[in-house]
């Protein structure tokens, strides 16, 4: 099952791109990712010279800062066989947009392309690259899953999380009405246009509630904080977690937006 590229060792060295939101707000997602990667036969390294993928700058038109952060991130991960992020949005930035950002730079374009070839979103990496078809963790309950836009459309992350969730016998997946609809987060969009963002997330939480699920999962912490924040404000008792937490059995910590 496991796909091996000629230059990739049996036990590849995976650089975890933690993402700034996981680093700052929800480290348990990072530890869940480490566990899933180790279970899939990988050695995990967390380069210290990483900060943020640069999307806030890139999507605000500040190309120079985005380019600086792209170079910084590429350099930090050059020793790794793979670069894996627990976020489709950040992985998309690294894989799709870094080569675009540095395309005109003769020294950096080849490095950006080589780097991009090694980048994967966490769950699709487990399934597509490491051939994982099942997880050992247990979870029982009715869950629904939100496909975050960048992962879905830039990286084709759709079946992989569903495949792994289906391997958990006690877990019942109830699909959302429109699985391709955005949750309204959009990074800085959510604070630049809060009223519009709110209208979009209200539609999403209505869809989430309509599934009858007790748990909402997704693969991107930004979307999760947006939806969890709205569900909490609406007084809904739906637990919101990153899909990696459930797949890794790392559900000791309170769900997103819950706590003492």
């Amino acid at each position, binding site marked *: 099952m496991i796909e091996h590229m000629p230059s990739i060792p049996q036990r590849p060295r995976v650089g975890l791109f933690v993402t700034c939101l996981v680093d700052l707000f929800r480290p348990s997602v990072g530890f869940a990712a480490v566990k899933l990667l180790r279970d899939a036969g990988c050695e995990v390294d967390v380069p210290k010279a990483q900060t943020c993928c640069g999307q806030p700058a890139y999507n605000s038109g500040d190309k120079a800062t985005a380019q600086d952060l792209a170079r910084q991130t590429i350099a930090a991960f050059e020793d790794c066989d793979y670069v894996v992020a627990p976020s489709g949005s950040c992985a998309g930035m690294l894989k799709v947009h870094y080569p675009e950002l540095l395309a005109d730079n003769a020294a950096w374009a080849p490095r950006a392309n080589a780097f991009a070839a090694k980048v994967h979103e966490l769950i699709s990496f487990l399934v597509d690259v490491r051939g994982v078809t099942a997880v050992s963790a247990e979870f029982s309950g009715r869950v629904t899953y939100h496909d975050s836009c960048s992962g879905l459309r830039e990286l084709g992350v759709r079946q992989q999380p569903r495949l792994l969730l289906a391997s958990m016998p006690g877990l019942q997946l109830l699909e959302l009405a429109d699985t391709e609809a955005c949750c309204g987060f*959009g990074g800085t969009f959510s604070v630049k246009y809060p009223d519009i963002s709110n*209208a*979009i997330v209200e539609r999403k939480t209505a869809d989430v509630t309509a599934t009858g699920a007790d748990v909402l999962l997704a693969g991107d912490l930004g979307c999760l904080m947006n939806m*969890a924040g709205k569900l909490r404000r609406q007084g809904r008792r739906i637990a919101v977690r990153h899909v990696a937490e459930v797949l890794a059995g790392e559900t000791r910590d309170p769900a997103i937006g819950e706590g003492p």
Partner: protein
Amino acid sequence: MKLTSPAFKENATAALADAQLQRALSSVGPGLAARRGAARAGLPEFEALREEGRRIKDHTLANLDAYLEAFESKASEAGSVVHFAPSAVDARAIILEICRHAGARVVTKGKSMISEEIGLNDALEAAGLEVVETDLGEYLIQIRGETPSHIIAPAIHLTQEQVEADFRRLHTSLPKERQLIEPAQLVAEARQILREKFLAADVGITGANFLIAETGTSVIVTNEGNGDLTQSLPRVHIVLASIEKMVPTLEDVGTLIRLLARSATGQEISTYTTFSTGPRRAGDPDGPQACHVVILDNGRSELLASQFREVLRCIRCGACMNHCPVYGAIGGHAYGWVYPGPIGAVLTPALIGVRNAGHLPNASTFCGRCEAVCPMKIPLPGLMRHWREEEFRLGASSLAARLGLKVWATFARRPRLYHAAARLGMPLLSLFARRGALKLPLAGSWTRHRDLPAPQGRTFQALWADTRAGVPR
């Protein structure tokens, strides 16, 4: 057309509070998206067609000068008069002159977004002409003094009840006790009113979905047949189209039409697809005595040479807005000028300036659905990002946004400093947590509508350093 794009935020807030608009938006847009999905699923070669459509348009744009000349020569051979209008002012003047020369009093119009772009109706009315929109949606907004809120469904913001009230208010010659409950009854009434106008018109103005270079033909697609009556009954037919409507051959139109109807309404083909080449010829039973084609540039040749060139592939199907979460929330009028939705977010800054329309490319979550459904594969989010870069370069984005970005970048560029600050800051921040939510000053934009989930406490990097040092988590 009155420009309100600079007030986009206020427009959006008002749109969100407009219950009638929200009711109208909740039904039609999602319905169009669902129909497009079904049509796409029913055509296995749809993706190959998209690629072919993109290729046709890219080729045409790369050779646009030659195709425009070829069109002019073929259309002239067929008896049409071709006018090139560099600007909106020129186009209005050309059309007014044609109307004046024809001694026109009544002008009928098929649906044309270009005529909205150049403010044609106001110019014609100021010159004393009676202008009648004949597309049902356009007629509805004309009688209400509104502008289109969607490029193919201009009255998508209206509910049936509003239409009934307008008809009762305006069509006073009809019996008061008539029934106007079913959509069919409303359509029949509009048809009855418009039929007289079709017959009275001296000049008919239509847009064009395509201009065919090899034959000098203009093509329109409609579902009401109003375009046919607009262009064949009056003495003079004026086609108003922008330069990017050009396609090389009839066969190319076949490809693009298959994409257009499916992407727009989910139809395999629109009810009427009309090809017109020149005025009535000797022996023709009907048709106009004169035919003019006004080809508008209005800044497009500059776009052709810019990083925004790909937007000129657009065939105006409206799929991007039917699938846009922002358009779906606020409708088209909030965008504040002619073209709403993702296509408007790219096109409007080009036509009225990024300083006027800066909000439009910023008001996107970059969810990418517009690009995914665009039959012409226009990278709309990428082009919106180019406008954001343009705005940043001009220093036109807000001071708060620029300052915030600068502070954040100072840390993000220095990993040691960043992690040291985060290691200290996040545990402090979590002190402001109450039952899983952060209560912070300055977070109002987020917390007005949502809780802000609290951080767990220490950063991943700090915890990871501990586990590396043998400290259990």
